[in-house]
């Protein structure tokens, strides 16, 4: 059935005369000229506007800030990769954090715990977008897809030198097409929300109710 359908559909689409479109230029890269400070400012404004928490830190202080955030939120546990550069540092100072959990097995083996027993997850990011206040997250074997989705709190670190002005710029500068797309790539711009009831914003519908961004300068 499917093969016949395919042939029929494509044949029908080939039938009509198609006018030349004349569209060649793709000139929609950033027309903004924002320096780092401006990008940080814009990013922060946008993130705060959608109720994300943003912390400005340095390479020396980010770990303290993450630790303080965990304490302030009263987290019982934190899901952190033991394999990433940042994750290793947290694991190395485990006593400053709530009970550390690791995503070291396929989801099927511990789905119940992930869905009902994890308070928060900590992940890195691939970059950020200043214009829209967005994190770029490319899940991996070390930091799988559900980490930034299932726990009620998501703490993400963004290094300021990977904060781009626009989405288009990030795609181009990071060479997404050339590198090949990962199985899943995400833009995350705030905590999960809905306005389906009377246009009133409610947070934490299916994804995290809280998004904490730790900006590292």
């Amino acid at each position, binding site marked *: 059935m499917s093969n016949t*359908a395919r042939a029929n559909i494509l044949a029908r689409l080939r039938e009509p005369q198609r006018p030349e479109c004349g*569209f060649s230029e793709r000139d929609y890269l950033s027309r903004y000229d924002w320096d780092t400070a401006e990008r940080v400012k814009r990013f922060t404004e946008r993130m705060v506007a959608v109720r994300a928490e943003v912390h400005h830190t340095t390479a020396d202080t980010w770990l303290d800030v993450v630790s303080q955030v965990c304490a302030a939120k009263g987290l019982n546990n934190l899901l952190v990769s033991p394999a990433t550069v940042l994750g290793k540092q947290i694991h190395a100072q485990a006593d400053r954090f709530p009970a550390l959990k690791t995503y070291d*097995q396929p989801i099927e083996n511990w789905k119940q715990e992930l869905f009902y027993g994890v308070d928060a997850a900590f992940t890195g990011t691939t970059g950020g977008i200043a214009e829209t206040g967005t994190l770029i997250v490319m899940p991996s074997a070390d930091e799988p897809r559900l980490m930034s989705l299932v726990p009620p709190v998501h703490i993400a670190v963004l290094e300021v030198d990977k904060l781009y002005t626009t989405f288009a710029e990030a795609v181009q500068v990071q060479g997404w097409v050339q590198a090949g797309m990962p*199985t899943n790539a995400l833009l995350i*711009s705030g905590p999960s929300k809905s*306005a389906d009831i009377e*246009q*009133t914003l409610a947070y934490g*519908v299916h994804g995290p109710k809280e998004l904490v961004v730790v900006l590292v300068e």
Partner: protein
Amino acid sequence: MITQFRQTVRANLAKPEVRANFYRAMDGLMTRRLDQFPDKAELERLRTQSMAIRANALSKLPELLETLEANLIRNGIQVHWAETAEQGNQIVQAILERHNAKSIIKGKSMVSEEMGMNHFLETLGIECLESDLGEFIIQLDGETPSHIIMPAIHKNRIQIAKLFHEKFPDIPYTEDVDELTQMARRILRDKFYATTVGLSGVNFMVAETGTLCLVENEGNGRMSTTAPSVHIAVTGIEKVVESLSDVPPLLSILTRSATGQPITTYFNMISGPRKAGEKDGPEEVHLVLLDNGRSNIYSDPELLATLRCIRCGACINHCPVYVRIGGHSYGTVYPGPIGSILEPQKAGLDVHGELAQASTLCGACSEVCPVRIPIPSILNRLRYDGVRKDTSNTHTVGSGKRRTLSEAATWKTWAWAATHPTIYHAGSTLATRFKGMLPTNLGAWTTVRSAPKLAESTLHQQVKNLGVDHE
């Protein structure tokens, strides 16, 4: 004769609460959209650019679909083609049977609505659970979406609170939006935990990279495509774009036009199932490419513009007809201006052709359309197709089926009079002279209006005193 459409419209116009719900929501959406485009010239530039991106993709549609398919397969995504909704449903059914699945959990998908998938699968004993909050609410009440991006917009908080209490009597009654949302979260989390097949729609398909893109705020789309071990995506064949660099401008204009957000919470780009070594994500990803009348629309160079649509709903939000009659009056999956051009083309002018008539052609829709679909022109064209005598030059389904002898004779007589000025003006003069004898009850016109008053004498008579030339 009062048509079914007019009967429904009458009934819905008589529900002040529903009308108030629509007004409040549409006013909010219009204001928020406007706030996103402070620079009018920039907006016009973006609309032109977005139109060009979509027009470019359509101009290469069969080639892009083949490139897309090749890249999806290379990425490990299984591609299925369906000419009709029925075929699409059967493809989904076969996948479910292979996995012995008795239920699926759905992210928001208008194409699945178009396919009537829930009904189809439920007759097979398969449970379909909607997980988008709005879709979840209307599914509880046995309704269909009244808006393509805000499916439960016709309901207010109190109605939803009562509905939740009726369906989940164990949970305490609340009218608090946060609490209602958390109730839904808990219920649906259990379902995401337990269900092995997830279904979603698609906003853009990128041919260049073999990527499926989903735009959403809640995470229902991410959950449905990530937590279950099988993900089935369904979408229309027109949703493809050529390159990844086409996506950022479309995404930006989509979210701003739709809900007045600079971007949604999640933009989810899926380019494959779980790879070796990865610990989550579905083991299988399927894409069902649905035609369902689209290739027929594609065959007409004028109507083709219909397929540029990126389903932002801005035309709906700005439509003075929609805001008054509400989404359910249309009796179709897609309501509002986009529905009024899409549905008659898909189902046929004999079935939904009246929707093309249910517009004042005011142009509020095309003024905001991010891809510049000339909706009033297409409505006009569909009116023409509906009543044309010679249907040999059009592929529109149901062409000529709306032509009636009496209406055709009326227009013929009118045209004859208007091309015989001496007689036409003698008639006008007579009408003004004997206007006292004209009826004051003009049927539909005079239900809320007085009968129009003719002047004492026509402009043609008065112009004689004006000292103007006549040629």
